[in-house]
Every structure is written in C-alpha cells, then in structure tokens.
C-alpha cells in the first residue's frame, strides 16, 4: 500500500493548473530595472502628489540598506531585482464602462469564473479586478456609494481621497517595516482601497481579484481598508497566475484599520501558480499583511486558504491596541510537489482584555514543506489578555514535511495562554473506512482533508467556502493511491 501510494504521489502532480493560461494584450511595460527614475516615472504615470513620491523614494532609500530576510524555512535562488520590470499595464485606460475594457481581459476574468458584468455577478459581491499592475474595473461602486462606502482602486483613491490615503498609508505597516514591505512601498502600482463610514454595515461582500499575466514582472499591490467606528466589512481576495517557467515575484502589502466597535473580516483564497512538479516556475509570494485594532471593542479576523505559489512567506497579523479588541487568524496551507510555505501570524496584545485565536491547518503532500510560524506577544499593560492557538498538520505520503515554530512572549502575568499542536499522517484506516463504504480514494482524501480543515472553512463567507473546498479537491487529486 505504501509503495503504491508513493507511486501515485509521484505521478500526481502532472496535474494541470486550471488557471495557467496567458492573455494576449497590448501592454505598456517598463524596461527591467529599479532606481529613483523608475519610481519617479511610475509616480508620474499615476499622477501622484509630491508627498507620495517622497514617501516612495524614502522607502526605496531604506530598502537599499536592508537585506533579504533569511530566517524563514524556505530555500530559493537569490532574486535579481534589476532583472524585473516594475510596471506592466494593458494599454487601454481604465474607464467607467466595461465596454471599454479589452475583451481579451474580460474573457480572462470570465475564464477564471469572475464576471465583471454586474448583472451576472454573484448576488451581493462587489469586485475590484487587478490585472498585472493596474485595476481594470470595480463593480457596484454606485450601489456602495449610496451607503457612503468607498470601494475603488488604490490609484483612484490617491486622486479622489488623498486625505484618507495620507492619513492611513503606512500607519500599520511602516515603509521600513521589512525588506519586502519596503520594496512594495517604493514601487507599489495599484491595489484596492476600502473605506466604511461610521455605523455602516457594508451591504455586500467586497473582493479583489488579482491576476498576474505579464512575464518578468513583479506584482506589488497595496490594499488599505479602513473601518470607521461601529462599521462592519467582509472582504475577500483571490489570486491566480499563468504557468510560466520563470519565477514571478509578488510582494504585496495589506493594511487594515479597525476603529472603535468596528469589525473587519479579511479572507484570502490564494491559488497562484505553484510551479511544475520539478519545482520549475511559480510565484514567489512575499506578503506583509497587518491589521490594527485601533479602537476599543474592535475586531480583525484573517482567514486564508493558501494552495498556490512556489514559495509563500506570509504572516497576517493583528495589533490589538484597543481594550477588549479581538484578533483572529484561521489558516489552511497546502503544499505539494516542491512547494514551500512558511506562514503563520503575529498577535500583539496591547490593550486590556484583548483576545486572540489562532487556528492553522497545514497539509503537506509530495515533497511539500509546510511551516507554521506564529508569535503571540502580551505587552506589559495588556491586563487579562487571552490567546488560544491550535496548529494541526497532516502529512500525505512520506517525502513531505511539517514544522511548527510558536514564539510566545508574555510580559503581563495575568495572561491566559493555551497552545495545542498535532501532526498526523492521513490514516490508512480512515481511507479504508471510506473506501469500504464505496467512496473512491480521491473523494476519500478530499473528504478527510476537508474535514480536517472544517474549522477554518467555516470562517469563510458561504460562496467562498464552497470554492475553497473544490480547490482542495482539485489540488489533492491523485495525491494518494
């Protein structure tokens, strides 16, 4: 049985990546290379105010002095930052009407199952579509505006709401925070912006769909979400990229700010191309995500389902500044073939009675390496802080690995901490049980794995929970024999 399993695991991963096609569009693309001039040119195309260019240049100056972090359990050839292009955009300008969007691009989104046509769109979900370096279209803007909700591309926000951008940009992730965040701050090209006014419960799910298409191009987007007092928003991002032989760099920043009594729920379904079975190609996903529970009783909840990317380096974190604020992190990370994921979270308790929950499910198949790295920090004044962490790993086959690195730092003795961790192999006896009931092996594996991930999937908005389940099924097809 074991040998047979191994054979099929080896065979597995001839699996087609469904989203691996490329789109042929007329594009404007910068020559490879990065210096002050490139940044100035980018800022000019975007018609940015002077202060923003200054901000970028300062970040760039800092970045040059920094070095790439090496502490993560990931292994890759050094990235040549001068060999990348820092801007690629379809020639057509963004317009208010979908009629003006290149039909090739609309077709791309259709193929991805994302209709930008409001009539056909899933009920109650507004989409911002980011293609390479720019936002192509944002749906339901008018509908949202009636509630005072601002949902637009980052570039538009810079033009239309500069005061908000100036106030919040870099307020959660300083431009000098880390190597990849500094790079992003210098060269970010677009992304999404959300503002929910006081007391408003956002009437629909908001989502951004990121697509990398161009070759040799880094994608550096920036998302900023502000939930004003007593507001609520649920936001989802999805990501795919074509299959290409070379690795592509994706270094995003996401900043969330929750004011008093506000709640932000941020979900990610990440399905970037993960490279072929020899480990060739795939996205390098180096992402900085952080939320600040600024006001009392605020709540930020991250849910992520990570199935793609050659390398994932990502630690969505929450700073619980307000009293009684809540931080949550729910994660499913799947690695197969030669994928590597080093992911986790940081929960920083500053306010009193703050509470955090961490639930992670790592799934490794093939030669995948899956690392959970999580930090919980209870500061001196955080009276009665509570953390619950549960980190489970499941192994499929015997060539993969799961690793757990919890870091705990408690400066206030009233803290209540609970940590649980388990690692198990997918049980032959569980598979036998399912098979004996007439359930096929593939179905049995996805059933068992989906069961394993249940607590996390339950945190996803309904439509996306279904998508996540299907994604796991496709990803693990043939991973056991």
């Amino acid at each position, binding site marked *: 049985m074991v040998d047979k399993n191994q054979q099929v695991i080896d065979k597995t991963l001839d699996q087609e990546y469904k989203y691996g096609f490329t789109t042929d569009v007329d594009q404007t693309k910068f020559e490879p290379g990065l210096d002050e001039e490139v940044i100035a040119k980018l800022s000019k195309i975007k018609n940015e105010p002077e202060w923003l260019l200054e901000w970028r240049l300062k970040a760039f100056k800092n970045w040059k002095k920094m070095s790439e972090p090496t502490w993560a359990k990931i292994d890759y050839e050094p990235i040549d930052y001068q060999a990348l292009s820092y801007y690629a955009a379809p020639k057509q300008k963004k317009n208010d009407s979908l009629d003006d969007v290149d039909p090739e691009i609309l077709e791309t989104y259709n193929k991805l199952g994302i209709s930008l046509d409001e009539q056909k769109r899933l009920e109650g979900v507004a989409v911002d579509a980011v293609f390479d370096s720019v936002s192509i279209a944002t749906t339901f803007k008018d509908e949202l505006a009636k509630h005072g909700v601002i949902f637009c591309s980052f570039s538009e926000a810079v033009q239309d709401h500069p005061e908000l951008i100036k106030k919040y940009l870099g307020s959660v992730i300083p431009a000098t925070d880390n190597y990849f965040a500094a790079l992003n701050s210098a060269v970010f090209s677009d992304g999404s912006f959300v503002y929910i006014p006081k007391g408003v419960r956002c009437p629909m799910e908001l989502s951004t769909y990121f697509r990398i298409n161009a070759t040799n191009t880094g994608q550096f987007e920036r998302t900023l979400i502000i939930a004003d007092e007593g507001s609520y928003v649920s936001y989802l991002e999805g990501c795919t990229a074509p299959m290409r032989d070379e690795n592509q760099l994706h270094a995003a920043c996401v900043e969330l700010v929750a004011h008093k009594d506000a709640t932000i729920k941020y979900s990610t379904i990440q399905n970037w191309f993960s490279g072929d079975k020899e480990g060739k190609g795939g996205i390098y996903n180096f992402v900085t995500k952080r939320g600040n529970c600024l006001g009392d009783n605020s709540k930020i909840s991250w849910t992520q389902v990570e199935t793609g990317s050659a390398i994932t380096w990502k630690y969505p974190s929450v700073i619980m500044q307000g009293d009684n604020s809540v931080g949550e992190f729910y994660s499913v990370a799947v690695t197969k073939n030669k994928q590597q994921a080093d992911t986790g979270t940081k929960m920083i308790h500053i306010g009193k009675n703050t509470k955090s929950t961490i639930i992670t499910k790592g799934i490794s198949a093939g030669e995948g390496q899956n690392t959970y790295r999580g930090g919980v920090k209870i500061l001196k004044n955080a009276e009665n802080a509570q953390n619950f962490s549960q980190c489970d790993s499941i192994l499929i086959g015997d060539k993969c690995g799961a690793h757990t690195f919890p870091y705990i730092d408690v400066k206030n003795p009233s803290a209540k901490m609970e940590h649980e961790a388990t690692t198990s192999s997918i049980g032959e006896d569980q598979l036998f049980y399912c098979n004996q009931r007439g*359930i096929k092996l593939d179905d049995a594996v996805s059933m068992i794995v989906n069961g394993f991930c249940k607590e996390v999937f339950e945190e996803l908005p309904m439509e996306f929970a279904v998508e996540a389940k299907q994604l796991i099924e496709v990803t693990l097809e043939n991973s056991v024999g």
Partner: protein
Amino acid sequence: MIKIKNLEASIDDKTILKGIDLEIPAGEVHVIMGRNGSGKSTLANVIAGNEAYEVDGGSIAMNDTDITEMSIENRALEGIFLCFQYPVAIPGVGMAYFLRSALNAHRKHQGKDEMDALEFLNNAKAILSELGLDDSFLKRSINDGFSGGEKKKSEILQLLTINPKLAVLDETDSGLDVDALRTVAKGVNKFKNENNSVLIITHYQRLLNYIKPDVVHLMIDGKIVESGDMSLVERVEKDGYSWLEK
C-alpha cells in the same frame, strides 16, 4: 452469494489465514466464532479487500464474479459491507455528508439517480428513530467522540442506509448494553431477507438469541475446523475451544 475457496492471507509475512473455505448462499445467516487472535477480523478485512493484508492463495467470489483482486471500493459497490470491530473517527466529516456520499456512490454504481437531500434525510431519520438515536446524530463528525454503543449503532445505520448484499458484522455485539444489543439485533433482522446474506463474527451467544443463524463455524488458528448448527454455540459457551484442538 459469497464463495471463499482455500483462502490464505498474511500480514507482515506472518501467515494468519491458512486455507479458509466458506460459502454463504443468499438468504442465510452464518456465524464465525473462535479464540482471540484466531483470524476472524483478518478474514473480514480480507473479504473487504483491506490492502494491509496480502492474499497468498485461494479465491473469493461474489455471485460468481471473482473479486480476489478487486479494489476495496469496487467490492463495496458489488455489495460487500463490513461493520467494523473498531470504526475509525474522521474528525470534521459530518455523518450526514458521509452517509449520503456513500449511498450515492452505490446508487450511481447501480445506475440510479442520486438521492436528494430531503429524501435522504427522511430515510435516515426513520432509521435513527428505530435505533433510538436522536436526529442530531447526523450532524456529528463520523465516529468522533462516539461512545462504544453509538459507534456500533452508527455502523448499523450505515448498513441499513446502504443496504448491501453481504453484511459482515465483526463483533458488533461487543460492548453493548442489553437494550442496545436488542436494538442492534432488530436492525440486523430488518436488513436481512432472502436475497442477502449475513456473516456474524462473535464471541457470545447473546446476539444469536435474537438473530437465528443457519450455520455456525468455529475457527482455530486461521482455519475453520468445525461447522454445524446452534448447538456448536452452546458447546463453546460451555466448554470453550480446547476440545477442538487435537
């Protein structure tokens, strides 16, 4: 129904089954008794196709189709059902979802339409009430945190839902209180008819007070050494197995 000829099987190069011959015609209930470790569960597992065991010789046929080499799920779809001695938990997988997937896999194989959720639910609820289980049972993760008795009843619930051709009950009576035993027996009696067969593996007479067997087999060290009627059960209860060893 099932015809087993000179079956030999081993695990980790250790021979467990040493030439089993067993034939159960449709409509009959057979019983296997035997000492701990004599190979009863091994036989049940080999019938179900558990790949942890190596078949070293002999054959198994279901209704004249040789299934010795058939995959686990195909045998299941051909009508073999095993009530496990120790059913395994699958955390996070809901009973209803699991059961409906299993049922629909069978229906698909039989060329029938999938059963819709409502009809499935109504069927399942009727069976649950007969087994003295609450509807909320369907919402629990399969075998996860079930009591011993609940596990056995869950196996019977599955048996009655899937309605196979051959049910192999591996110590389904063990660990049950008097009422639960009666409930399980009622379930098995409900299942059996002239077109299907039952193989009961047990250590005790008590279940057989409710389910009348047609043939009783006694197993020693991987072989069936004696076959007969209910009187064999009484003899075992009284004298154990040592009288068979000679």
